[in-house]
Structure formats: C-alpha cells, structure tokens
C-alpha cells in the first residue's frame, strides 16, 4: 500500500540524504529500518507521511500511498491520507507533544473511540496509569519515557493502517519496553496493521519485524528477512553494527573488577524531591568517586532524571545536600558560582530541547569552549571541531541549526557541549538512546577514556543493561524514589537481589536469542 520509488532527497548544498531509495510496504508488512545515526531514517519516515524538513528537498522519486503521491499532492489530500492510513511517531515525542493540552485531550484528539474507558485502556496499553489525576496532567509533568509512551498511545488511538515509528523504545526500561513491544505486536497481529519500525534496538527489530532494511549514509546497504540479516549479515556495515551491540551476558562475563576508587567527588545525602505535589525522590543518598562510572538504573518514571536535575541544581530539592569535592553546593543552579556550575555537567534526556533553536550548533559548543577554557576565537573553533569529531560529527554540521540535524546528531551535540565545559562530574541522562550501537559504543568509549585519563566521574542513566555491564563499575537501582540496590556491576546484575533489579535483568534480551523466532 506504500510504495517508494527511487526517492532521492538532498540538502540545500545538494549533498544527498537519501539516495534513490526504493521500498514497498504491503498491507500488514512489518519492516524494520536500522542504521547509523544520520543515515536518513527519519528523513525516510517523514517522506512516508509526505513531509520533507525545511532545508531538505526532493530531487527525484515518488512516495505512493494507496496510489497517491504524497510528496506532490495538495495539503488537503495529504491530510486525508495521513488521517486515514498513516500513524507517525516522531523521533523525540517530548518536544512533539503540545505543552498546553492535558493528557486526556492529547489522547482523545486522534482517537476513534473517545470514551473515558477507551482513554484509560489506551494509557494502560503503554503501561501508564489511567487514573483521572494522571489524565489531568500536562506533558511537562511526565518523565521522558512516559512522554514517549504517551505519544505512542496517542498515535495508536487513531487505529491507523500503517504505523511509522521512529525509535519508539528510546528511554524505555526493559519492562516497559517489553510491554510496549508486545502491545504493538498484538496490534499488528490482530488488526494486520503494517509497521515501519525505525530503531537502534536490534533486539526489538528482531522481535517486531519480518523484513529488515539497513541504511547507511542514505543508502540501503542490505535488506532481507530480519532473521537472515541479523543471523548472517552480508554487508560489512551490518556486521560492524551487530558487533557493536553490548549483550548483558557476555559483558558480565567479560566484566573486570575496577581499580580502587579515587576520592569522593560528588556526594548526595538525604535527597528528597517533589514534582507537582508528589514525592518523587525520597531520602536518596549516593557517592561518586573520581574516575568512577556509576550507572543509575530504574524503571521509567522512577525519578532518575529528577535525581540528575536535583544534583545539577536545575530542580530545587525539598531536602538533602549535594557536596562536590567536600564543599556543599547551593540548592539551585542560580545560586552556584560559575566554577561549580561547570564542574558538574548534565547531558539532558531531552537533548533537542536543550539546544537553542536559533543558534548554529557549532556556535553553541564553541561558546562554552571559549568561556570555559578562555581560548581565542581561532583556538576555540579548532577545539570545537575536535570535540565534534570526537562524537563523530563532521565539521560541515557546525553551522547548522539544531532542527537541521538528525536526532542522534543533536544528542551528540549536547554531549560535545557538556564535554567542552571540562567538568569533573558528568551526568549522562540516556545519552545513547538515539544512537545506533556503533556510534553509541564509540561515544561511551570516549567517556571511558575521559574517566581513565582525566579522572572525570561519570553518572550514567540508561536502560541498556549491556551498556551498563560494559561501561559501568557500580550500579545504583532506584525504585519508588528510593535506592533499592547499590553495588558493583557483577553482583548487582549477576545475582540480582531486589525484585525490580531482577525484573529488569530478566527483561534484557540479547539480539541473537530472539532473531528468527517470533516471541
């Protein structure tokens, strides 16, 4: 029902973003699209719904939905097609949710069935509470993962015939991810809904799709039955991609005891934080040593970001103390002197929102470089290029505006900016959620080197246990706003004690197992 014929999309400089891409999505087909960050996945997804971002243009080819060329049809037709057939989940829902609409209205807007009950079930399907109080909240009152799921629920409530999902599982913990995926699966099976599943999560792709397309630099480097591609990859890139995936089991076996910890840099004691009227963090304490890498684990909505924000001072905690190198920090960012502000850097979960839409990303990084290191404009420019290189961003991206970058590229800009500040405590909130395994691994290796060489302490929030096992030394598990588990990676994850931990571990699925079989 959707047919892409020789689609070629280029940016204003003529550099192609999609190269003569041809693809057919039949009724009920489930097609996975994986590939490097910046490969053109989102561009493809948008093309499917007949949209092209400003700064890009269609050079050649068509996208036919039920025979209608959505790239050339008038707005009215396109609208009808979208409403009738297509459901598109944008890459970072947080910014795509209208901030002035309560959850209830967000859901009813597109819904085919607008009854109270229906709304509640839609929320339940994605593992969100359906109660009235929750329905009365606004998007900004949700955690990243919750926003992600809200967007998904909103989308599915329209019962489209084809779902086009751009990285629907980013920022979801194992359990929720499990639930969401089986929901989707269920939907697909029951109603024969077609699926275009863009993801960096190969395991999810394996589970959800029959046909897999591997994109690299705007080109299809390999495609075929998902099992085939994942089982016996032919293209070099695909192999590299698979190799980069961190699998919990193997990593745990590989895991080596860390060197003796350095001095404590960051200490959080009795931290209690309230969001709205609800206590989100309840007397949380933890330590971070120099050069150490501490993973913060927990189900979506358990308070990880809140913790991160309270530590950086972006959010004023109800009670508790944060000390940096022995000195107690002011509760709010505004009260902290420049030096202290720079020493703790947060790479926020919503990287898009953290970039000034009106400033070229290069300038954004360069400014921090100059301020932090007191460099001349020239030196700063060089340093900026270097940093962007480190996170795998070509310098040609430097003078683009955030909206002219891919999701993953934006995320990496945010990382580069944090690095530029030269912090000794780095808090990474889901920093690899939008990155493919390969690029993600590269970024994490970069962080490791920072730790070992500069003794930077790392607090990383992630749902990818494989990554935790590969890059973390210690794990803290949050649940219901309390620390329920704390210890070296191998014994916390190897022999999980607390049931939350156990559940999370159980939910971690290696790519290999599931490939082929349809769970």
């Amino acid at each position: 029902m959707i047919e892409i014929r020789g689609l070629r999309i280029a940016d204003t400089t003529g550099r192609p973003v999609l190269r003569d891409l041809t693809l057919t999505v039949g009724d009920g087909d489930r097609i996975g699209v994986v590939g490097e960050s910046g490969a053109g996945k989102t561009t493809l997804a948008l093309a499917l719904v007949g949209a092209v971002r400003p700064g890009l243009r269609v050079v050649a080819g068509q996208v036919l939905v039920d025979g209608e060329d959505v790239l050339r049809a008038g707005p009215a037709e396109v609208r009808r097609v979208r409403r009738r057939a297509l459901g598109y989940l944008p890459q970072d829902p947080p910014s795509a949710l209208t901030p002035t609409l309560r959850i209830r209205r967000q859901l009813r807007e597109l819904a085919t069935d607008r009854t109270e009950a229906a709304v509640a079930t839609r929320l339940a399907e994605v593992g969100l509470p359906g109660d009235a109080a929750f329905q009365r909240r606004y998007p900004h009152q949700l955690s990243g993962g919750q926003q992600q799921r809200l967007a998904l629920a909103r989308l599915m409530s329209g019962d489209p015939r084809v779902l086009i999902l751009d990285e629907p599982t980013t920022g979801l913990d194992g359990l929720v991810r499990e639930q969401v995926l089986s929901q989707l699966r269920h939907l697909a099976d029951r109603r024969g809904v077609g699926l275009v599943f863009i993801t960096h999560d190969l395991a999810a792709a394996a589970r959800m799709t029959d046909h897999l397309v591997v994109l690299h630099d705007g080109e299809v480097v390999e495609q075929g039955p998902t099992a085939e591609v994942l089982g016996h990859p032919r293209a070099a890139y695909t192999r590299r991609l698979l190799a980069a995936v961190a699998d919990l089991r193997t990593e745990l076996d590989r895991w080596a005891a860390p060197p003796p910890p350095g001095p404590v840099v960051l200490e959080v004691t009795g931290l209690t934080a309230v969001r709205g009227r609800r206590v989100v963090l309840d007397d949380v304490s933890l330590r971070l040593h120099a050069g150490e890498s501490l993973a913060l684990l927990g189900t979506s909505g358990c308070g990880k970001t809140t913790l991160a924000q309270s530590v950086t001072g972006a959010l004023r905690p109800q009670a508790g103390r944060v000390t940096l190198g022995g000195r107690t920090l002011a509760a709010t960012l505004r009260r902290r002197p420049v030096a202290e502000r720079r020493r703790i850097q947060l790479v926020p979960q919503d990287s898009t929102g953290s970039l000034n839409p009106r400033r070229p990303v290069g300038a954004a990084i360069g400014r921090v470089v100059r301020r932090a290191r007191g460099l001349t404009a020239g030196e700063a420019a060089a340093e900026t290029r270097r940093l962007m290189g480190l996170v795998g961003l070509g310098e040609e991206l430097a003078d683009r505006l955030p909206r002219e970058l891919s999701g993953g590229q934006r995320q990496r800009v945010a990382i580069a900016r944090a690095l530029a500040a030269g912090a000794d405590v780095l808090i990474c909130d889901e920093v690899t959620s939008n990155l493919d395994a390969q690029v993600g691994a590269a970024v994490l290796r970069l962080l490791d080197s920072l730790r070992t060489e500069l003794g930077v302490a790392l607090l990383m929030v992630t749902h990818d246990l494989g990554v935790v096992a590969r890059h973390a030394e210690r794990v803290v598990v949050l649940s219901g706003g309390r620390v329920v588990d704390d210890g070296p990676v191998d014994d916390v994850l190897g022999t999980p004690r607390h049931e939350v931990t156990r559940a999370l571990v159980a939910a971690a699925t290696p790519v290999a197992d599931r490939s082929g079989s349809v769970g």
Partner: protein
Amino acid sequence: MTGLRFLVRRLGAAVATLFVVAVVLFAGSEVLPGDAASASLGPDATLEEVEQRRAELGVDRPWPGRFVEWIAGAIRLDLGVSSVSGQPVVDLVAAPLAATGLLVAVTAAVSVPLAMGLGLVSGLRRDGRLDRTLSAVAVVAVSIPQFVVAGLLVLVFADLLPVLPAISLPPLGGTALDRPEILVLPVTALTLFGAAWASRIVRAAVIDADATPHVEAARLAGLPERVVVWRHLLPAAVPPCAQTFAWLLSGLFGGTAVVEVVFNYPGLSQTLVAAVRNHDTAVLEGVGLLLAAIIVVAFVLADVVVMAVDPRLRVAGR
C-alpha cells in the same frame, strides 16, 4: 490554587501601582500650567476675585495637604468637585465613561477578531502575496494620523456620498445603542488603527508558534488545519497577543480623544481634554485615576490569561 494566589498577588500589586499612578497624576496636574480659578471666572474678573476664588478652591494651599485629602477622598470614591461646573467629578464622569465603554466594547468586538484573523492569515501564509498586501495595508493604516483618518471618513461617508451620520448624535433621551449607525464611523476609525497594529504582532507571534515541533507533529498526525491552528498553534501565540489586546483596550479608553472630538462623541477623552483646557484639576485627576485603574485591570487580566494558557508558567507560579 497557584492560580488563585497568583491572582491575589497581582491584584495587590495593582492597588500599589494605582497609588503610585495617583501620585504621578497629582504631580502631573500640578505641573500643568494655569489655575482653575482664573479659568472658572469670567473674563471681567478682578484680581481680588481671582485670589478669592483660589482660596475657595483651595488651590492656594500647599500641595501635600491637598494630596492627602484627595487620596482619602478617592478611597471613598469621592473625587472632589469640578472647579468649572461645581458638579461632583464622579457624577460628571459617569456618563462619558459609559459612552466610552460602549465605544471601546464595540471597537474591541470588531478589531480583536479582525486582528486575530488577519494576523493568522498572514502569519500562516508568511511572505505570500496576501501577506505582503496585508502588511502594506496595515502599515499604511497605522501611519495615517487619527484625525486625518477620521476627517477623511466623514468627508467620504457623510459628505460626498451621504450614507452615514457625520457626528455621533444619540437620539433624545436615548443612547448610541438606539441609533447604532452613529457608531459606525468612530468604530471604523479606531478599528483601522487598532486592528492593523495588533495584526502585525499577532502575525509575528503566529510565525514563531508555527515553527514549534508540536505544531509540525500535529500536522503530521493529519489533523484538520482548523484544529491544528486553534488547539496547537494559537496557545503558543497567546502571550504577546494577550499583552497586545490588553494594550489595545486600555489604550482605547484613554486614546479616543481625536475620534471623540471629530465625531463629537461625548466620551472620557473629551472630558479629559476639556479638563486640561479648563485647568479643571479635580476632573483631570479623577479621569486619570479611572483610566489608570482600567488599564491596570486590563493588564492583570492579560497576565492571568497568559498564565492560564501555559501550564508551565503556572507551576513556576510567577
């Protein structure tokens, strides 16, 4: 809850503000040259008489005393008496206030939707032919001085092709409502400026709002344009618009002077101007305070609206 506290805080602030305004007004009318005494006496007055009248009006006493009395009175809604006609200011102002109120209400009813509509259209079709045209027209409309606009309107619609009354003359024992046609020209004159000006800001706000990701997302979801605009786009455009319309309304209350003179519309501004001419300080200060009150209220409302629309501000509680 935060909303209520906010409202209370704002209103408290408003009162404080009014006091300051009162002080400034008083000082201002002190600066205004001339005294009620010589103005209210006939041309044949002798020097003694002027002095005597001064004493009667109390303008010879030092200002602090008079200020305190005035404020004290104002709190009891007693704004003193006109030095010209001897009537209580409150009575004197009631009718014009009502008249202006009507004029403003009608003008607002016309120009706010108009400005919204035009602003939206040109904002959504930015840089299109329609947008360009509207912009040019708006600019012209704003650039022509009010008295010229009013004058031309009379010339064309009351004189050359007599279809409308030249001055706003309500029927005996009635109000403008009994003869709506007399409102047409004044309202047009005011709207031309108001709508044109406001539409420019609306346009800008709409352009900004149109660029936000959630609006794009709403379109990609295939929602009808109408829904996209009303539910997703407009809320983002509210803050500047709210301020604009608050300014428009309050501005209208005090700023209809020219129109009122040209169309002989017996409104507040005429009272104000006449008061200035006659050095009728009591009236001047009274009207001034009244206008100030209206304006402050308008802007408090604007703030409330902004806060009501954007939940993030509400939590921030500012």
